[in-house]
């Protein structure tokens, strides 16, 4: 479907990533509204993989920042693509810290953050090369909630599942058998 959005519908890749990242951030705020967070500071850890899902995570982090959260990004394997570098710069310029190291002592992560946004893997596969496998190993041990972005629904066992795809034209939804969804008001996400 992404191919069709890019080729037939002529969406730009950066445009799509911006739309997805923004929608993901909105979904996060619905699942974890600011007043509901257990920690004193609204901290979130955003783990970004090297591919497109990681870029979506970067955009998501930036929007979360503007919504009043305090995201911290872990982006160990950076894509050399100029597009992804620009997304990184935008985050840095919003004073979003980038972790140089993800501790293996999970207690530290549980203590520091309210939740984790997992933007490590997309459609590529359930196991990636290092350091993805190591990150995922650590994330599995966490007690704080994890929000996974996009395609990895086969791993999903959690409580809240959102669909962030309001921008997908109806014709394409029908073609790919995504049932029509009613999005409330002008929201870009809907709870499933």
């Amino acid at each position, binding site marked *: 479907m992404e191919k069709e959005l890019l080729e*037939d*519908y*002529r*969406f*730009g890749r*950066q*445009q799509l990533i*911006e*739309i997805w990242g*923004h929608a993901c*951030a*909105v979904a996060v*705020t619905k699942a974890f509204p600011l007043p509901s967070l257990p920690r*004193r*500071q609204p*901290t979130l850890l955003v783990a970004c993989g090297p591919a497109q899902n990681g870029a979506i995570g970067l955009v998501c982090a930036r929007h979360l920042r*503007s*919504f*009043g959260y*305090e995201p*911290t990004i872990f982006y160990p394997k950076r894509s050399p693509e100029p597009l992804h*570098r*620009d997304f990184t*710069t*935008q985050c840095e*310029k*919003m*004073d979003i*810290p*980038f*972790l*140089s*190291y993800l*501790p293996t*002592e999970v207690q*530290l992560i549980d*203590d*520091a953050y309210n939740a984790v946004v997992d933007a490590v893997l997309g459609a590529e596969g359930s196991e990636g090369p290092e350091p993805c496998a190591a990150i995922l190993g650590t994330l599995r041990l966490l007690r704080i909630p994890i929000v996974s972005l996009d395609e990895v629904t086969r791993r999903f066992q959690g409580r809240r599942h959102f669909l962030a795809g*309001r*921008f997908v*034209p*109806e*014709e394409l939804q029908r073609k790919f058998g995504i049932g029509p969804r009613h*999005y409330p*008001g*002008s929201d870009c996400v809907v709870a499933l």
Partner: protein
Amino acid sequence: MPGPRALLGLGLLAAAAAARAGGRCPERGWSWGRGWNRSWGRERGWNRSRGWERGRCLPRRAMHGPSAGPGPAGLRFLGQEEAQAIDQELFTEYKFSVDQLMELAGLSCATAIAKAYPPSSFTTSQPAVLVVCGPGNNGGDGLVCARHLKMFGYQPTVYYPKRSSKPLFEGLTTQCKKMDIPFLPEFPTEAAFIDELYGLVVDAIFGFSFTGAVREPFGSILSTLERVTVPIASIDIPSGWDVEKGKADGLQPDMLISLTAPKKAAMHFTGRYHFLGGRFVPPALQEKYALNLPAYPGTDCVLQLT
């Protein structure tokens, strides 16, 4: 526990231990205690103190909402050159792309319209909206707005007489067409026809870069729009207005959606709804230009100013 600095530099282990005991940030000489990521006696958000995440303390900045420093409490209205400078900085320093910001801007416009003119409020049988797009970026904002309006349940129709050949604009046009948004081959000749067919007009003709005389076909279009009685929502600047001085005998829109920050022309706006949109200005840039933007509500991408 082995020496924390040996393991991670100013890493997590050091911070975790220090957080319990209280410690000092070596570079800046600041100290932190329990609740170490709370700013020291100042408002929340004044300071990002998790310097261990970068191996150093972060410089102090006003991170949320309006600048916490002294200065005018009121929202600033920008001159044309300032608006252009901020735009430039977003692209060159902050590395935003036109695509990204245009998408967010267009979404803001559609959202503001949805708040002020919900589909149920239309007296026409369908919530029909005419979106008039100019040749430049303001027109691009209009194309994005039209697409989002369609998704929000409106029936937009676009008039886009002078189309840019740049891939961005061709892409936006295709996206609209693929969503079954019709493009008019001609502009309605009479204001009365527009009043009959549409419940709202979106003016996306000229933006903050507009100077000089209005070239055809936009002169005639604006004359017609000036006689329209249905509400007009202008994107960023009512088209035809001087970006700083306004235009007393020009278009009088019912709604203005100022993008990024309002321009001086907005001081001459007398319509019912003034919204702020374009929620993408990084705090550092807001501070640099002392924009004094009020806080957006929750996750909304628009803020109603009046």
